[in-house]
């Protein structure tokens, strides 16, 4: 079975590095990190991910703008996006991503189980 390709965009390199380690440790995914919002579109075009994990608050171009660019790209527009944010927590999401404006939102302190479940759910769609 081919490994799914996940692009993670977050301005915090240690976070993206950890995420990559955890996700790839499962053996199910290939992960690419991107720490600049402004370069997220180019990275996606290059990497052609099956799913994008996107930080909301970034200094140069925020997650909303990156999502808009992805939406506008004919090749990428159907790529599922999961927002990762420090402002949603597990208590609120109760393990499931909170839907806002059509996008799933996950807290950054989500447990491994919930993280993988959310990724799998969105990959299937």
């Amino acid at each position, binding site marked *: 079975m081919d490994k799914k390709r996940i692009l993670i965009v977050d301005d915090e390199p240690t*976070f993206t590095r950890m*995420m990559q380690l955890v996700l790839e440790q499962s053996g199910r995914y290939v992960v690419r990190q991107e720490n600049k919002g402004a370069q997220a579109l180019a990275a996606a075009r290059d990497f052609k991910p099956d799913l994008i994990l996107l930080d909301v608050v970034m200094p140069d171009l925020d*997650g*909303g703008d990156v*999502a808009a660019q992805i939406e506008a790209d004919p090749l990428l527009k159907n790529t599922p996006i999961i927002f990762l944010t*420090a402002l949603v927590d597990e208590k609120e999401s109760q393990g499931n991503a909170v839907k806002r404006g059509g996008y799933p939102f996950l807290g*950054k*302190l989500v447990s491994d189980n919930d993280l993988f479940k959310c990724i799998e759910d969105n990959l299937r769609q």
Partner: protein
Amino acid sequence: MGAEPLRILQIEDSAAQARLLEEILRGAMDAPYELKWVDRLSAGLEHLEQSNFDLVLLDLGLPDSQGLNTFERLYARHPLSAVIVLSGLDDEGIALKALQAGAQDYLVKGQVDGRLLVRAIRYAVERKRVREMLTKERDLLEALIQSLPDQIYVKDAAGRFLRANGAVASFFNLATVDALYGKTDFDFFPHEMARPFHEEEQRIIGSGEPVINREACIADQSGGNHWMLTTKVPFRDHNGAIIGTVGINRDVTQMKMAEEELRRANTELARSEAELQKAVAELQKAHDELRAAQMQLVEVEKLQVVGRLAAGVAHEVKNPLAVTLRGIEYLSKSMVAKDEVVTTVLKDMNDAIRRADAVIRGMLDFAAPRQIEVRSEDVNAVIERALWLVKHDLDRRCITVNRWLEHDLPRCMIDLQKMEEVFINVMENAVHAMPAGGSLTVRTYARQLTGFGTNVGDSKVLRFKMGATVVIAEIEDTGIGIPPDKLSKIFDPFFTTKPTGQGTGLGLSVCKTIIELHGGAIDIRNRKEGGAQVAIMLKAERKE
């Protein structure tokens, strides 16, 4: 009179008669006297004009006047004089006429002796004094009655006027009081008005009971209404028998009008007082409301500051926690040999991160706009309420408000209190941007989305579905605008363009969070005309 000599004027054409009389008087008068003799009526009248005499002894047959005419001419000129006619004629008819005409006595020359003459003189003088006194009394009484402004009248048992003063005559529009005498109220008033007066007087005559201070409105001859205070008492003869009525009417119209005016003024005063009390109550209510609004604003501001601080701290702390957590999870899974101690350490670290997260969550729960309670609301009403809450600031800065609120705006599912906070925040930013006054324009309208790009700007964290109806609220100011290089940071926590101490730099970041919790969007841009425009886009409630 005592020491004063009695002054006697004798008008007698016969010198002999005059001398004879002087002789008689000298022999009989026991009191001092002065006697002046003239032989013509004209000379006598002249003397009476010039000085006072107590008595006139008058001969009727004089060269310039004859008979009773002589007396009448003198008496007409000097009605108060005491006159004794001394005549050569012993004519009872003339004597009687003279007495009836006012002479004190009639003596026949030749039949007069000293004793008779002196007595006649004394009686005449005494009667004159009494008459003078009575006349004075009568004149005083008359003057009193006539000079009083009240109407005073005496009527006989049939109600006919016997006496009245000028006030009565002028009430009936008569030139003199004489025109009243012999007439009754029926001659002056309509029958239905005169009758109760007449009946009242008949009751007084019958019972002897007076009527005191009866108040009634009476029309005068020219139709003017007068309020009259009437007192009527029985009029009795010297035996005590009731022979009529005496009345006094006082015109109290002015007083009544003054009373009425006073009553009206009192009513007016009472009403003014009530109105004043009402105004004070309203003022108090307005004051209380203002105070409540102020407290609410303070509370909102406090919560916002705490909330924004919490949100900022949470964001900054959660990222490193997340890194650590992912690292621990990675380590847990990559341990080949399950070392029990390492496993325990990693678990403890995981627990520690969860605890730190719980602390942050607790802080956020305290005030951050994390949970919204939505209900169907009218955005226009929310805006109106926010405008009302910032009215004080707007007024203080002389900022005029233009409202372009669309009628029939679709309702939105929103958290009333949180969205109110958003609008207050945005409006207060506008106020701060216009320190020297200006105008604040608030516009609402609904749009059906035809494409992704809307005039809500570039912030598209959240996507609205094509064809969806959105409610857009725009708040524009004519203030200083936002420096272009700062525009991209405007929603960052702790970012502010306001001078130190005037802004926390958290307002718009919280606003944005609240709006995004509603699935809406907010955008800020500088207007070409100057000032800034904030656009807020909310999903319209779907009509089922």
